[in-house]
């Protein structure tokens, strides 16, 4: 945890700086679409960060993380549908629902280990996918268009302003990074990482691991709910596909691409993911034919992701 300057940290700082100046840089270089791309990257970066707490630091391979993003997005959408746009009502409720769902799903799935855990988190998250599909009032398969964004009640924080919305997302990202950084290095974080390293040993020194894993699960779900709130406000739309399981897969993809278990890895991964997708889809309509094998190659040859490659052989440290 020394504050040495590594290549990976320079790149992380660069990516964050890019995120910070994009609303001004993008028009200047004649590529205004980059603002949207970076906003989306940051939202997914928050989601990936949250998943990284349990996956990268805690070793819990949760394959249903998109559900916490989705239920928060739907909460915002359903509030707006019924005419409630006050963010001070919407946002706490959305976060609370994400936390609650994470608590229930965590309480069930954490009773199991290994491959059962992977499959159960995957299957449980699908419950809400089908629930969303059958909710006729809220658009079922077609999804729910959100006519009005959240109203923060502060005149200089109007989310209908593109740049304001962008910087709200940016600040949320920085906040998430800061919170995660504190958690990971706290006593709680030590326990979570210890559990990943050797859960039996943790029980052997007197730590009842289940409740710590569950707490981490709820923290991750809540933080992912924040991403969902931002996503709803950014896209002004939410559909069952938002919480379908391939989205959870993409989230893990971003983490692995950037660097699992490193603080900035998921953010770098998210930005690179969306940039790569943009570049590839310019080249071919069938960009996933490149993405799929790319993921396999990363898994086989670059488990540390971008951060691991940048750090060279120091990835064990």
């Amino acid at each position, binding site marked *: 945890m020394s504050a040495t300057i590594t290549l990976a940290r320079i790149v992380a700082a660069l990516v964050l700086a890019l995120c910070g100046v994009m609303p001004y840089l993008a028009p200047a270089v004649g590529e205004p679409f980059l603002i949207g791309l970076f906003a989306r990257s940051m939202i997914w970066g928050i989601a990936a960060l949250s998943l990284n707490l349990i*996956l990268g630091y805690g070793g819990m*391979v949760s*394959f249903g993380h998109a559900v916490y993003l989705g239920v928060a997005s739907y909460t915002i959408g359903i509030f707006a549908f019924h005419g409630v746009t006050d963010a001070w009502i919407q946002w706490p409720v959305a976060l609370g629902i994400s936390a609650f769902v994470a608590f229930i799903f965590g309480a*069930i799935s954490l*009773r*199991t*280990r*290994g*491959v*059962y855990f*992977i*499959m*159960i988190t*995957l*299957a*449980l998250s*699908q*419950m809400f996918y*089908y*629930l969303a*599909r*059958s*909710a*006729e*009032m809220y658009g079922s398969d077609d999804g729910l268009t959100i006519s009005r964004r959240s109203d923060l009640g502060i005149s200089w924080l109007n989310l209908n302003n593109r740049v304001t919305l962008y910087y709200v997302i940016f600040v949320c990202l920085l906040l998430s990074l800061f919170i995660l950084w504190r958690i990971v290095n706290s006593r709680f974080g030590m326990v979570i990482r210890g559990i990943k390293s050797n859960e039996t040993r943790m029980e052997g020194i007197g730590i009842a691991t289940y409740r710590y894993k569950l707490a981490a699960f709820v923290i991750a779900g809540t933080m992912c709910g924040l991403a969902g709130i931002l996503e709803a406000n950014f896209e002004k739309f939410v559909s069952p596909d938002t919480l*379908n*399981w*391939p989205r959870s*897969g993409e989230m*893990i*993809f971003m983490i*692995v691409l950037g660097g699992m278990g490193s603080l900035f890895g998921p953010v770098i991964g998210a930005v690179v993911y969306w940039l790569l997708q943009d570049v590839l889809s310019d080249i071919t309509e*069938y*960009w*996933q*034919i490149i*993405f*799929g*094998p*790319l*993921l*396999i190659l*990363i*898994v*086989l040859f670059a*488990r540390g992701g971008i951060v691991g490659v940048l750090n060279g052989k120091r990835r064990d440290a």
Partner: protein
Amino acid sequence: MNYALFAEQFLNGIQLGMVLFLLAAGLTLIFGIMDLVNLAHGSLYMLGAYYAATFTEMTGSFVLGLVIAVPVMILSGIVLEIVAIRTLYRRDHLDHVLATFGLILFFRELVRIFWGSAGRSIPLPDYLSGAVALPLGIDYPVYRLLIIVLGLAVALGLYLLVQRTRIGMLIRAGASNREMAGALGVNIPLLYTLIFGIGAGLAGFSGMIIAPLTAANIGMGDTVLIQALVVIVIGGIGSIRGAFVSSLLIGLIDTLGRSFLDDLMALFLPVNAAEAAGPALSSMLIYILMAAILFFRPQGLFPPKGAKA
């Protein structure tokens, strides 16, 4: 509740159960023996459906199409194992999940490139399209009945293969004691390739026989993969017997739930509330069941012997 309708939906449930079993059997075999989590199993199911569509078009006969498609499917599985899957055995489950998720993306695009985004329907021959009169005055589609029969036949075949043949003996030896099987001179890599081929064949075959009902389409593997995962989690991962029992359970509960849950709920809820909540609840039913079973039996109903906690 209409008796004939119930009987029909009951048979539909068994038919879905059979399709799920074909898929889950391969999945659970591959996991039980190779310790490999294969999310791309749903992609093989999809691939089978498209193979069936193409070979049916080429030969003009669905049956002939299947006769060609099955060996091609097994061969595809073998090639996939050699090219991509084989390197994953020594990796952990997260790597399996990620790499096979990569395969899903790959196969989805591959199918779009070869067959386009629109689905492919497969016409049934006349002698399979009608209904057959069953005892007690029930009319039931011939083809769905055939699926049930085929599913039972494959289940029996699998049982005989595993219990009675030399390959089955190797499979059981591999499942219970890898090192011993290796020490006895079993060619483990060949065995694994073969099992993956069989699993791919089963997944593809289930896609082939469902295609005339749903048409081959790109998303078809995603939903059914999750259902198959639920099946093997409930059944006990690695157990073919468990997969069979829980396939039927899931098939029946899902089908009957979708058909009758709103009627059932209307008995104690206002009709409009029941009609609103029924579809939502019925689509979540199998997941709730899974959660409930796992709460009491985290290893599933039939955990294979020697399974670790």
